[in-house]
């Protein structure tokens, strides 16, 4: 009984959020083009549906507010309200409160809505009074409201029928139509994918156990099993893909709000909205995208006066585009603003102590632009409401790191800035390199591995407190992975801890090295044994070991044993922090 209710609530929430989003989208559309009859009709219909759903579920506050909004849109539709900027900001505020009320269904909290409701009611009342005045002067005339394209009954019918058909005005379709789409909670999909993951693991286990036995027959038998299970896996992953348009459409409102606060005129253009991406990836990056879009409006686009002085159109444009690229999805945020000010970034970084004057001159533009992702970095001298608080860009970077994405900045002075995010199209399956270290199996995602090399101990040289090798003319810092683990475990500052294993091995030993690269930092990890390349399904770590920094997740091998997936960004950060720590220690000693 209780479950049923929870399920209804879930469905209501999903629909309500969809409605809310549609209202926002239509409103921005309407604000641009006040004569858009279709948009008004759709708004009327959506608020009506929302009202009906909410009162059906007993959420009277949502129903009340939606009712007032519905009335208001009704008046607008009938042409009784001339839309002004002022009215729009009131409506937007009302819609925001509506959003809060919907959120409050999920997590109970108190939302005040009476104030905005009264304000909206006043608008309607005014419109009604005007209409009455009008009808009084022309009494013989039929009520203006009868001229509306829909009678209220027809609208009701439309609201019940599928949402696609209803947008065609005029033709009332009295037949009930069923949608071809099924709404499924993500939770259920996650569960499905987990099960498929276990199926694959189980398949691998059986294959491994059969490997020694009757080879010829079993390989044939299992080929089909392998094919079907991998088909199943990709189908389930495919179900989880959503079009980026779902997220992108929300940004009309974000841009509008940001632009009106900054008193700038900005147009948002969307490209490639039908690109598909894993729903969870989209969820993880949505906050980051909001931040980047706001930054583009706040920092990138100049004020209208500056733009005209620079000979650009008064309205700035922000493009949000997505495209597929083999295994990844590339999302670009491009603006036609003033571009990055490299000199300012340089001086700011020096002022903040992020780098020294000599180092700063050595950096090229690409490296300079990466500085904006350092914590606490912000080039705006003034803090504005929507951007420039100096937090955010580093958080964006961290978020991307966590899902194995990367970010690139391309900027041309005076022409604009492009931020390019490369995201995995699916979070579930990762290609990994399996390796052995002290009898345990670890995995390194292939997205980080650059190459695999094999060197003799004599090829490796001590350099300061670390180790260095030359491979194909490039110098690579070499680290014994086991030393890193040992170092972090006892955390005693042993001198030359990272040379420990190096000292204890025979000069003729052949060493297997995995070269990993992240953020232009390249390190060769010495491992005991390289095993194979494998597609794995990574599972997150569970409490109480969920805070381990070196490990991003786990997977189950064919043997049933657990394999740890190394978190390369964190590992590299740890190693480079070690070396910088060493440097500061030495400085203190010298002083």
């Amino acid at each position, binding site marked *: 009984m209780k479950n049923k209710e929870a399920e209804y609530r879930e469905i209501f929430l999903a629909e309500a959020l969809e409605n809310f989003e549609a209202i926002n989208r239509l409103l921005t559309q309407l604000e641009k083009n006040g004569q858009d009859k279709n948009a008004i009709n759709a708004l009327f219909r959506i608020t009506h549906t929302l009202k009906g759903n909410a009162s059906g579920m007993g959420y009277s506050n949502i129903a009340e507010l939606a009712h007032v909004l519905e009335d208001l849109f009704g008046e607008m539709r009938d042409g009784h309200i001339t839309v002004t900027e002022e009215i729009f900001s009131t409506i937007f505020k009302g819609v925001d409160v509506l959003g809060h009320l919907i959120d409050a269904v999920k997590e109970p909290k108190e939302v005040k809505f009476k104030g905005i409701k009264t304000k909206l009611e006043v608008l309607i009342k005014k419109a009604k009074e005007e209409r009455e005045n009008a009808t009084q002067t022309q009494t013989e005339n039929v009520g203006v409201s009868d001229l509306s394209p829909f009678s209220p009954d027809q609208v009701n019918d439309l609201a019940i029928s599928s949402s696609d058909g209803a947008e065609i005005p005029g033709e009332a379709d009295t037949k009930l139509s069923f949608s071809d789409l099924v709404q499924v909670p993500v939770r259920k999909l996650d569960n499905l994918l987990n099960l498929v993951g276990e199926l694959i693991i189980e398949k691998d286990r059986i294959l491994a156990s059969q490997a020694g036995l009757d080879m010829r027959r079993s390989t044939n038998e299992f080929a089909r099993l392998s094919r079907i299970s991998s088909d199943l896996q990709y189908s389930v992953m495919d179900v989880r893909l959503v079009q980026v348009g779902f997220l992108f459409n929300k940004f009309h409102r974000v841009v509008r709000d940001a632009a009106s606060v900054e008193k700038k005129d900005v147009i948002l253009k969307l490209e490639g909205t039908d690109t598909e991406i894993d729903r969870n990836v989209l969820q993880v990056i949505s906050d980051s995208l909001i931040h980047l879009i706001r930054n583009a409006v706040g920092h990138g686009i100049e004020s209208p006066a500056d733009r005209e002085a620079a000979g650009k159109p008064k309205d700035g444009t922000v493009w949000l585009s997505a495209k597929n690229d083999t295994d990844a999805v590339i999302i670009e945020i491009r603006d036609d603003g003033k571009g990055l000010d490299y000199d300012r970034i340089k001086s700011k970084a020096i002022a903040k102590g992020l780098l020294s004057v000599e180092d700063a001159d050595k950096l090229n533009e690409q490296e300079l632009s990466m500085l904006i992702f350092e914590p606490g970095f912000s080039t705006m001298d003034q803090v504005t409401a929507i951007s420039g608080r100096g937090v955010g860009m580093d958080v964006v970077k961290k978020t991307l790191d966590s899902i194995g994405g990367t970010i690139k900045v391309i900027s041309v002075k005076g022409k604009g800035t492009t931020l390019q995010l490369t995201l995995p199209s699916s979070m579930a399956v990762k290609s990994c390199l399996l390796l052995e270290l002290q009898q345990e199996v670890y995995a390194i995602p292939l997205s980080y591995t650059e190459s695999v090399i094999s060197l003799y101990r004599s090829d490796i040289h001590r350099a300061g407190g670390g180790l260095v090798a030359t491979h194909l003319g490039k110098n690579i810092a070499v680290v014994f992975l086991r030393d890193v683990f040992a170092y972090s475990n006892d955390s005693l500052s042993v001198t030359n801890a990272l040379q420990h294993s190096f000292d204890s091995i025979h000069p003729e030993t052949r060493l297997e090295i995995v070269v990993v690269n992240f953020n232009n930092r390249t390190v060769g990890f010495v491992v005991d044994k390289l095993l194979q390349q494998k597609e794995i399904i990574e599972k997150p770590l569970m*409490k109480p070991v969920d805070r381990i920094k070196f490990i991003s997740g786990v997977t189950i091998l064919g043997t049933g044993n657990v394999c740890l997936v190394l978190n390369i960004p964190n590992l590299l950060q740890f190693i480079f922090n070690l070396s910088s720590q060493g440097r500061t220690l030495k400085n203190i000693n010298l002083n």
Partner: protein
Amino acid sequence: MSAIKEAINTTTATNTRTGTFQIIVFKQGDEEYALHIDQIKEVVITPAITRMPQTPSYIKGVANIRGNIIAILDLEEKFNLKRSQGSNTENNYTLVVESDDLKMGILVREVPNTLNIGASDFDESVGIINDVNSDGNYIKGIVKYDKRLIIVIDIFKVIDQEMLGSLKKTGVA
């Protein structure tokens, strides 16, 4: 689901009132420790354990138990309980404990046994003297049963402290 849980809660409540509850007793070092039966999900033969870096030594690693990957703890090491000689048995069994947001395994050497304990045998107000470093509030009480002394602990309190500790540690690093 929650209805079932409530039902369980009420039965335990009535049980305490009528005077009995069940504990799972297992040996750690030379002492007998016990957990309330509600905290225990199952007992399995210890699977292969994969060591984890960056963990204190009493976290033995993680293991795959029925498709779930859970952390395996050695309380003997955590509580610093030395085994007396002659008991060379391995940690053959793993006690899987579960709460709403936590699931993990505890290594034990023998199959644990269940005891019905009368409330009168259970002493919650024991003044246990701790040294400053070890926080003793995970001890729920002491049970006297025949001539045995059984220490009843709240396993999730043990872990809460551990997690706070590791938080501090990562804060430093």
